[in-house]
């Protein structure tokens, strides 16, 4: 391992390299372009390929194609580019393609403020494409976590044959902090299962863990990557049994591994508290300081920080909360708030939409929270 001092964007790039990234396709967009620029320099020297495509749609489709040759693939973008990638996310879901998509959120809607942050893509990260599906989404709050969760994203993608979203934002992207970079052998790296048979392995026949081994191109598997609803062979199956089987399996293979996917951190939640702050990403940094300040003033406050935004483990969250009032702090009009309200049925849940192009000062946050104290 080695220690360095660098930005969130670079940390994501390094995380991808540690995880075994082999193919990157992207399009420049503020504030994510450094990821592609850094990889364009580093990845070819490690035997990988980086290509700047003509748009985001081409980028994600190329990344999906590359994944089907067995290469770990990634693309990074921001809000406007993420919106363009919608259809392809659905393609990755139904073809069960391992893929990491990084959305470095910026202020929207539309062109918004390209150089400043928001957390407004949270629901889009959950359900960008049309159709019925669930995909994992991770939200780092620091440079080190940007690195760690990118590795986790790759592992999740490979383990469950699914696209995974890493939600960073403009603050984390350009924030500089110390980073520990691990060597390939020092951290757990998961690779996708590949079938052993030589011929015509049904590309969508699941193992007991509901994930089929992936018959990558070029090995004589005669794989069929199919965007239509299909049966186990990959053949178009417009029938109730096949449709239900496919859609439910695509959900269950993710939800069954909630234990692996769902990560969160709590601060002082094992004490008897009156208030619990819930936050994630860059906003959590301010929420944490606000919590410390409130505790200093005598309030019994604890905090729960989500590292995994989707899917949420309602059991774990409910069990970990002893407070009566929950305040959800996020840099949007209240998105995770909706699920917190749904999950915490016994508590009063409030939304603190801290719309802030840069990290808000703590006193502003305290002012907002004090309404409910």
């Amino acid at each position, binding site marked *: 391992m080695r220690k360095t001092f660098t930005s969130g964007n670079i940390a994501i790039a390094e995380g991808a390299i540690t995880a075994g990234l082999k193919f990157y396709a992207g399009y420049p967009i503020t504030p994510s372009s450094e990821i592609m620029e850094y990889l364009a320099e580093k990845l070819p020297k490690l035997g990988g*390929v980086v290509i700047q495509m003509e*748009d985001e749609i081409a980028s994600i*489709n190329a990344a999906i194609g*590359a*994944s*089907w040759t067995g290469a770990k693939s990634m693309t990074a973008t921001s809000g406007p580019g993420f919106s363009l990638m919608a259809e392809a996310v659905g393609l990755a879901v139904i*073809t069960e393609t391992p893929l990491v998509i990084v959305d470095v959120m910026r202020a929207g809607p539309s062109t918004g403020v390209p150089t400043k942050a928001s957390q407004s893509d949270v629901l889009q990260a959950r359900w960008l494409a049309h159709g019925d599906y669930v995909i994992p989404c991770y939200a780092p709050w620091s440079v080190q976590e940007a690195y760690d969760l990118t590795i986790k994203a790759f592992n999740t993608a490979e383990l469950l044959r699914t696209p995974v979203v890493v939600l960073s934002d403009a603050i984390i992207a350009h924030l500089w902090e110390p980073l520990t970079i691990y060597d390939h052998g020092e951290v757990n790296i998961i690779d996708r299962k590949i079938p052993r048979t030589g011929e015509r392995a049904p590309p969508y026949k699941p193992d007991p863990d509901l994930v089929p081994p992936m018959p990558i191109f070029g090995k004589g598997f*005669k794989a069929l990557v199919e*965007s239509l609803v299909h049966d186990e062979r990959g053949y178009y199956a417009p029938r109730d049994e096949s449709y239900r089987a496919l859609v439910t399996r695509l959900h269950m293979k993710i939800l069954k591994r909630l234990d692996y996917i769902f990560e969160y951190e709590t601060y002082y939640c094992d004490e008897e508290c009156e208030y619990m702050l819930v936050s994630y990403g860059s906003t959590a940094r301010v929420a944490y300081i606000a919590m410390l300040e409130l505790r200093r003033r005598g309030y019994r406050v604890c905090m729960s920080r989500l590292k995994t935004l989707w899917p949420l483990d309602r059991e774990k969250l409910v069990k970990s909360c002893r407070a009566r009032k929950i305040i959800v702090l996020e840099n949007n009009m209240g998105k995770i708030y909706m699920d917190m309200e749904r999950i915490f049925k016994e508590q009063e849940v409030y939304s603190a939409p801290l719309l802030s192009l840069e990290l808000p000062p703590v006193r502003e946050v305290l002012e907002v929270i004090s309404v409910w104290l």
Partner: protein
Amino acid sequence: MAVEHSKILHPLDRHLRTERLPTMYCPGCGIGIALGAIFRALDRRIREGLVDPNKVVWVGGIGCSARASLYVNYDAAHVLHGRAIAFATGVVLANPELQVIVIGGDGDIAGIGGNHLIHAAKRNIDMIVVMITNFVYAMTGGQVAPTTPLGVKTTTTPSGNPEPPLNVIKLIASLNANYIARASVVTPHYIENFFYKALGMKGFRFIEIISTCPEIYGRHIGLRDPVEMYNELKKRVKYKPKPSLEESDINWDKGIIIGEFIERNTPSYLELLRKVYVR
């Protein structure tokens, strides 16, 4: 299905997922003819040892032509409308040993996929793109396409198409492709020979195949019978050994020139990439 297929069937069966036959194509649809000719070319190259069938990957978008990816007995992908070329770019860059064939219709490749087509040709990326032109969006019932001739009545231009058509050959020829040819289903030998040649080349190879579509386009222009449409197309198709781009416009009255418009040996994207990367 009541009748069992006998084991020894058509000589091209090794290229097909025979359990999915008969295809969904209409009677007289030219796509099957094009596929047969392509298989013959593949067959020859496989026998020569130049092409490894395990390394061939077919990529199709959405549409009747792109559905060929469902029937071929190779690694194949049936992806999003217009995005086959982007997907294929990822495939060939991540594994340059693979021989990628993109197949699609004129709407899929030159309409919604136009931008990807342009950039792939500009890069001279290593792949063969087969565009089967039937002048209409047939799968969805007969809407106007980028190549639909002026004045033709389609389901979305019921008073006649007010747009002049796109000449895809001329468009791609302005870029860096190594091979641009046009064939037709009424002259399947040329499809086979052009594809055979393309398999031996590097870089971006583009073959347009003018096709019959009796059920949909035929309905629009009054040639609903497969044999009638085939014969009418045959009257208009003319092969030229070295056609110029000025002759590449498709004109149902003046005739359709087929042949090899561009054939050159400029460095492909993979070759340029190798030169650029310093290890």
